[in-house]
């Protein structure tokens, strides 16, 4: 907006100066964590209206899934929340196992819990790194990536990929963990609590950090529930709701852990909740490793899981299953609908399937936490300063791959 001094005599000036300024934030702004576009109406530095525009990363995952059989959809779920793809994979598999009524072996449950918590740590590390960077703490960014790299390396050794893991399978896992891997993970969990303390030394009491986060972006418990928030964003407002406790899956009901909650529902409390989750996840991983039972990793469900390779070419039934499963998908999928939620690092990730008994889903709908959280941005930002918009975006931890799907 032009506001030169020679314009001051212009009768137009008065009309212009009372007008709100419309600012387009994103979709390429680095602090919008992907391709979120916000149109902000500003009055001075205060946000009067905030309108999120989404869809820049739409790839039609739900539609693509209708044209793939159940086994092929797995790599698509990697690309929802690509920061914690392991959790998405597990959410997908858990949902389908419920639909197909597959009993998953104990060992698999424990390993899944371990890798899901690793991915929670990796996700929160990236969140802390970028959130701190947005607010202006550069050092934390580098330290967090150091630890995240270790988890990525462990993932690579486990399944061959660092980011898009595709590790779980319907009814089991791609491969078993080896003792050396477990040992290295154990070492990581030994040192990780000390690292969390280091991050806290850097920012927890830092006056700039406190000023930027305390009392900013407050959302009450009631509002948070009404807006459908979940995960750390909901728990920051003091609602102790966690899908892992409410509807346990994996081995979450076999280990001891707590649901950390905040009080005020501001950016700082959401930050504290995630910092506590670091410790809880770490302890869940350790307990799971200590309790890890022996046994098979694939469920005994030949109609839904690929048979062992040695049986394929020596046994007629297995050969048929192998061919049918790969070319057409599970042919005995029960008809019906199912919604199964899991707790991914960002909140409640739900998979809703309508199955018509063929090898492909008739409809796959994904309830993505980021989608819901983006919708709360106007509520969080309106009436606050423009600098707080960035803090708010960071604090609800969105990823647009999942939001736009």
């Amino acid at each position, binding site marked *: 907006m032009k506001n030169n001094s020679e314009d001051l005599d212009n009768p137009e000036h008065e009309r212009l100066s009372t007008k709100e300024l419309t600012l387009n934030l994103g979709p390429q702004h680095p602090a919008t964590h992907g391709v979120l576009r916000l149109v902000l109406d500003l009055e001075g530095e205060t946000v009067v209206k905030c309108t999120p525009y989404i869809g820049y990363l739409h790839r039609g995952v739900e539609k693509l899934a209708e044209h*793939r059989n159940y*086994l*092929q*959809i*797995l*790599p*698509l779920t*990697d690309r929802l929340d690509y920061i914690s793809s392991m959790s998405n994979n597990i959410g997908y598999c858990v949902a389908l196992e419920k639909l197909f009524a597959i009993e998953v072996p104990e060992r698999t449950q424990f390993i899944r819990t371990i890798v899901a918590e690793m991915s929670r740590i990796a996700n929160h590390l990236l969140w802390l790194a970028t959130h701190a960077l947005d607010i202006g703490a550069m*050092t934390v960014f580098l*330290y967090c990536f*150091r630890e995240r*790299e270790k988890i990525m*390396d462990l993932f*690579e*050794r486990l*399944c*061959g*990929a660092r980011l*898009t893991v*595709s590790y779980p399978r319907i009814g089991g896992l*791609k*491969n078993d963990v080896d003792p050396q891997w477990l040992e290295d993970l154990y070492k990581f969990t030994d040192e990780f609590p000390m690292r969390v303390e*280091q991050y806290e*030394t*850097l*920012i927890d*009491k*830092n*006056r700039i950090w406190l000023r930027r986060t305390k009392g900013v972006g407050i959302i009450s418990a009631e509002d948070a529930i009404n807006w459908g928030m979940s995960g750390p964003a909901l728990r920051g407002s003091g609602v102790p709701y966690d899908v892992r406790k409410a509807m346990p899956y994996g081995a979450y009901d076999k280990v001891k852990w707590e649901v950390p909650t905040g009080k005020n529902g501001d950016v700082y409390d959401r930050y504290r909740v995630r910092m506590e989750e670091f410790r809880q996840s770490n302890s869940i991983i350790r307990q799971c490793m200590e309790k890890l039972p022996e046994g098979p990793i694939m469920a005994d469900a030949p109609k839904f899981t*690929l048979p*062992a*390779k*040695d049986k*394929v*070419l020596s046994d007629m039934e297995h*050969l048929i299953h*192998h*061919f049918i499963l*790969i*070319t057409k998908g599970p042919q005995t999928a029960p008809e019906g609908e199912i919604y199964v939620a899991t707790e991914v690092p960002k909140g409640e990730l739900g998979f809703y399937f309508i199955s018509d008994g063929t090898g492909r889903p008739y409809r796959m709908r994904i309830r993505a936490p980021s989608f819901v959280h983006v919708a709360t941005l106007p509520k969080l930002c309106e009436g606050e300063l423009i600098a707080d918009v960035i803090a708010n975006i960071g604090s609800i931890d969105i990823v647009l791959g999942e939001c736009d799907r």
Partner: protein
Amino acid sequence: MTVNEFVKKILFIEILKGLALTFKHMVTPAITRQYPAERREPVPGSRGLHALVRNPLTGKEKCVGCGLCAAMCPSQCIHIYTSEGDDHKKVVDRYEIEVLRCVFCALCVEACPYGAVALTEHFEYSGYTREEFYYTKERLLENWDKYMAGAKGEEYFEKFWRPKSVDFATAAQAVQAKERAGQ
């Protein structure tokens, strides 16, 4: 605000603590790598460029052209063309992978009953045209020779991509050879 808090505040205690931590890190060894100069060893089993397994007995591809890998591929980037050869046997004329569309999920490896396709740990390849990323059967076999040569390739393949059981194609031929020898 208590006296204690006040003193902490004016002395910038929390900031000094943070600074002390960063200074401590200044003297610890760096963990970053200077990439093109300093390369990281890919771990065995990391999912990179494809290779078609060469059958040690025939020197040709092990693939029989069943098409399961193409059926399984979620990005539908494997194209297989077969024809009828001598003895009414299926012959794989062309086996092509569009690497640009591949998502490196390794489902093709899982689908192959023969263990005839593998992913190598090679990930640094680039090109100027699309054709360079269109891997034909010959190029894929070449990849096998190139990246699986030596003990490391063997370890890599054994550990991750070989079907976790007997190797059928070769095992069946070995049985046949034995029978023939016995006759």
